[in-house]
C-alpha cells in the first residue's frame, strides 16, 4: 500500500548538509499497522512527512495505493493540484493534535470536507458521523480547549478520516498522552483499521505502541531502516535489536561457570510449559534471571533469560531441546551482552522528546 524506494532527504543549510533519510526502502502491506521506531533524530519524522510529501524527498520515490506521489507536480514547498488531491486521500494524525482553536470540534472535522468541496449539509452530516465513530458525538459544539488530550486526539483521528482515506499516517500520535489514554487511543486505531480496512503507518519512540497495535515494525537508525518485518518474524530473528527492545530482559549470572540463555517465545510454543519440561527431562536447576511477556497482535509472546549450571559445552543438549520446541534461543556471553545493550539502548528512555 505504501512503498518507498531509495528515499533520501538531505537538509542543506548555508554551511552544512544533514542527511535525514539515507536511502529508505520501506514496504507497508495493505491492511497492516506498521510501526517505525527509532530515537529522535533517526529520521522517523522526515520519513512520515516524505510519504505525503509535506517534505519533498531529495531523491527516491514514494508510491501510495499504486500512485507515485513523487511524480506528481509540486514545486518546492508548493503542492500542485494533483498532489493536494492525493493528500486528501491520506489521513494524518499529529503528536500535538494540531486542531484549530478558532473552530469547534465539529468545525475542525468539517475543515478537510470543506477542502474536498463537500456542500454544507453534507459536511455537517459526515462530520457528525465521524465524531460518532470516535465516540465524541456529544462534543461536537465544544472547542478543542475544552477537551482532554485523549479527546483532542480522537478529534484529530476523526478529522484524518474525513476524506475516506485508505492510508492513515500517525506522527507520534500518543506521545503526548498518558499511558491509560494512549491505550484507549491505540485501541481506537486498531478498531478503525479493522472496521474501515485502513493501512496505518505510525512512527513512535514507544515500544509499547508497537506491542499494542503493530502487525509489523521497522527500526530506524541514522536515516536508514536497519530491521524490518512482522513482529513474530522479528522475534524469531536471532540478534534482533527490535525484539530485544520490545522485550528487554535483564539479569546477570549468579556465579562464574554458568550459562546464560535468552529464550524467545512466539507462536504456538507460548502455551507449552517448556521450562519445567526442560528441568524434569534433564534434571537441571534453572534460574530465571528476567522475563518479559506480552500480547502482541493477539498472540502471547515474550522473552526470558535463564541460567543453566555449567559451561556452554555442558548444556549443548538442553539448549538443543529448547530449539526443538520451536523457540529462538540465544546464548548470551553475560558481560558482553550487557555492554552491547547499553550501547544500543536508549530507545525506551526517549520519552522526554
Amino acid at each position, binding site marked *: 500500500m505504501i512503498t518507498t524506494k531509495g528515499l533520501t532527504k538531505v537538509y542543506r543549510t548555508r554551511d552544512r548538509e544533514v542527511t535525514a533519510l539515507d536511502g529508505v526502502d520501506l514496504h507497508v502491506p495493505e491492511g497492516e499497522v506498521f510501526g517505525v521506531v527509532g530515537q529522535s533524530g533517526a529520521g522517523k519524522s522526515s520519513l512520515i512527512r516524505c510519504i505525503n510529501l509535506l517534505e519533498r524527498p531529495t531523491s527516491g520515490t514514494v508510491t501510495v495505493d499504486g500512485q507515485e506521489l513523487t511524480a506528481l507536480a509540486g514545486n518546492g514547498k*508548493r503542492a500542485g493540484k494533483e498532489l*493536494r*488531491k492525493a493528500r486528501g486521500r491520506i489521513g*494524518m494524525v*499529529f503528536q500535538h493534535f494540531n486542531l484549530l482553536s478558532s*473552530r469547534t470540534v465539529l468545525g475542525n472535522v468539517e475543515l478537510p470536507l470543506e477542502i474536498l468541496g463537500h456542500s454544507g449539509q453534507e459536511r455537517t452530516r459526515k462530520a457528525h458521523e465521524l465524531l460518532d465513530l470516535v465516540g465524541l458525538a456529544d462534543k461536537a459544539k465544544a472547542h478543542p480547549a*475544552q477537551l482532554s488530550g485523549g479527546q483532542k486526539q480522537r478529534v484529530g483521528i476523526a478529522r484524518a478520516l474525513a476524506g475516506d482515506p485508505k492510508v492513515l499516517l500517525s506522527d507520534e500520535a500518543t506521545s503526548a498522552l498518558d499511558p491509560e489514554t494512549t491505550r484507549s487511543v491505540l485501541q481506537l486505531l486498531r478498531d478503525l483499521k479493522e472496521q474501515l480496512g485502513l493501512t496505518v503507518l505510525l512512527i513512535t519512540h514507544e515500544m509499547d505502541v508497537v506491542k499494542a497495535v503493530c502487525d509489523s515494525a521497522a527500526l530506524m537508525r541514522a536515516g536508514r531502516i536497519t530491521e524490518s518485518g512482522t513482529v513474530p518474524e522479528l522475534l524469531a530473528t536471532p540478534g534482533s535489536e527490535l525484539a530485544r527492545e520490545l522485550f528487554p530482559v535483564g539479569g546477570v549470572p549468579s556465579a562464574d561457570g554458568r550459562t546464560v540463555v535468552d529464550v524467545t517465545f512466539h507462536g504456538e510454543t507460548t502455551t507449552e510449559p517448556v521450562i519445567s519440561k526442560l528441568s524434569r527431562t534433564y534434571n537441571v536447576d534453572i534460574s530465571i534471571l528476567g522475563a518479559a511477556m506480552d500480547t502482541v497482535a493477539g498472540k502471547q509472546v515474550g522473552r526470558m533469560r535463564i541460567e543453566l549450571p555449567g559451561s556452554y559445552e555442558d548444556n549443548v543438549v538442553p539448549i538443543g531441546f529448547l530449539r526443538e520446541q520451536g523457540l529462538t534461543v540465544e546464548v548470551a556471553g553475560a558481560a558482553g551482552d550487557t555492554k552491547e545493550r547499553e550501547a544500543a539502548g536508549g530507545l525506551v528512555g526517549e520519552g522526554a522528546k
Partner: protein
Amino acid sequence: MSWSEIQPLLFQGFWDTLYMVGWSTLVALVGGLPIGVLLVLTDKGGMLQNAPVNKVVGAIVNVGRSLPFIILLIALIPFTRFVVGQSVGSTAAIVPLAIGAIPFFARLVETAVREVDRGLVEAVQAMGGSTPTVVFKALLPQALPSLVAGLTTTVIVLIGYSAMAGTVGGGGLGSVAVQYGYQRFETSVMVATVVALIVIVTAVQIIGDAVVRLLAANRGAAAADGGAGKRLARLGRGRTVAVAAAVVVPLALIGYGIGTGGDDKDTLKVAASPTPHAEILEYVEKHLAEKEGLKLEVRKFNDYVVPNTATESGEVDANFFQHKPYLDDFNKKNDTHIVPVVNVELEPLGLYSKKVHKLADLGPGDTVAVPNDSTNEGRALHLLADHKLIELKPGAGPEATLGDIADKKGLDFRELEAAAVPRALDDVDAAVVNGNYAVDARLNPAKDALAAEQAKGNPYANFLAVKDGNQDDPRVRKLAKLLNSPQVEKFIEDKYKGAIEPAFGPVGS
C-alpha cells in the same frame, strides 16, 4: 472661550478625527493585511519562500516605518492629489495617514500570523489544502485575536498621527488642540480637546480589548476569563461580531465624510491662517458676503506652504496669509504663479520683554529670541537695526540672518519657530514676535511693544492672493472689495485694538 464656543470646535474636530482615522484604518487594514501575510509566506521556510520578494517588501515596509509622519505628509502631496484629487482637507489627510499606517499594521500582522503554530499549517496541507486555504482557513482565523489587538494599536497610533493633519488643513481634535491651545493660548480648548482625545483612545482600547476577550472566550478559553466574555460570547458568534465591527465602524465614519464632502462650484474657497486672516474672512462671510451674492468657504491652515501649493493646483481659489517678500521667495523657489490682489492688514512685528521696560535697558549679555524662518528673521533683524540695537552689514537684504549682523552689541540670539517665540518670553530678555502670535499670546503691540514696525509703506502687509489669471474672477473682485471696505476696517480696529492694523490698497511691487 466659553463652552458654547468650544463645543462646535470639539464636535467638528471629533468628526474630522473619526473620519480621517476611520478611512485610514480601513485602508491600512486592506493594505497591511496582505503585506503582513506575504512577509510570512515568503520568509525562509514559508509556504511561498522567496528571498528577493521578502527582502524587497521588508525593506519598503521599513522605509515606510522610519519616515517621520510629518515628512510623509508633505512628501506625499503630489501622490495625494493624484489619488483623491486634492492635497488639502480631511480627505487628503487620509492618504498619508493610511500610507503611514499600512507598514505599521503590516508588521503587526506579520507578528500575529507568525505566532500561529506551524503544526496547523502542516495539518491543513496534509488534508490537501492549498496555500490560500491555509491562509484563509488556518492562519487568519487563528491569528484573529492578535490581529484585532494589532488593529486597535493601529487605530490609536492613527489618532496620534491625525493631530498633524492640521498641516494640510485636515482638521481633527489634535489640530484643534495645536491651533487653539498651543498657538492661541486658549487653555480651555486645549484641555477640552485633550480630554476628548483621551476619552476616544481609551474607548478604542476598551472596545479592542473586549473584542479580543470575546474571541478568546469563543475559543473555549472562557474558563480562565470567566463572566463578561462568556456572556458576550453567548450573545453571538464572536468572530462574526468582530469582523462586522471592523468593517462597519470605519464604513459608518466614511459615510459621514461623503455626506460632508460636497463641492460647490460657486463657492470661493480661501485658505487662510487661523488668526487674524480666517477671522477677518469669517467676518466678511457672515456679515458682508451675502449682500454681494458671494459664497465663501474659509479653510484654516497652520502651515505656510500648503495654502500656496493648494492655490496653485486650484484646490482653493485664493489664499490670505502672506506678504510680498514671502510670496516672491515662494514663487521663485517653487516655480508657482501666485499673485497678490489686494492688501488687507499688517501684523506689525514687535519687540517684547518681560524683563525690561524700555529699549535702553537691553544691553550686552542679554538674550533676544527671533523667528527662525528666512523672512521673519530678516524682518526682525531689520527692526532691531532700525532701533540701533544691532548693526547690519551694508547691503543686508530682507532675508538677513544672524550672519549678516556686523555688530551684535553684546546681544545673544535664540532662533525659534515663529509660533514658539512668545512662549520663550519667560526665558529670554526680549523677543521679536509676529503680530498674530503676539495677539494670540495676549500681548498688545500698541501698548506692550518696546519697539514695533511702522505700518506706513510696510512691505509686510498681508494680502489676498490668487493664481495668476484669476485676478479678474468676479468672485475674487467682490472679495477684494469687501476686504477693503469700511466695515472690515472697523472690524480690524475694534477686534485687534492696534495689534493688527488695516493696510488697505493695491500691493506695491
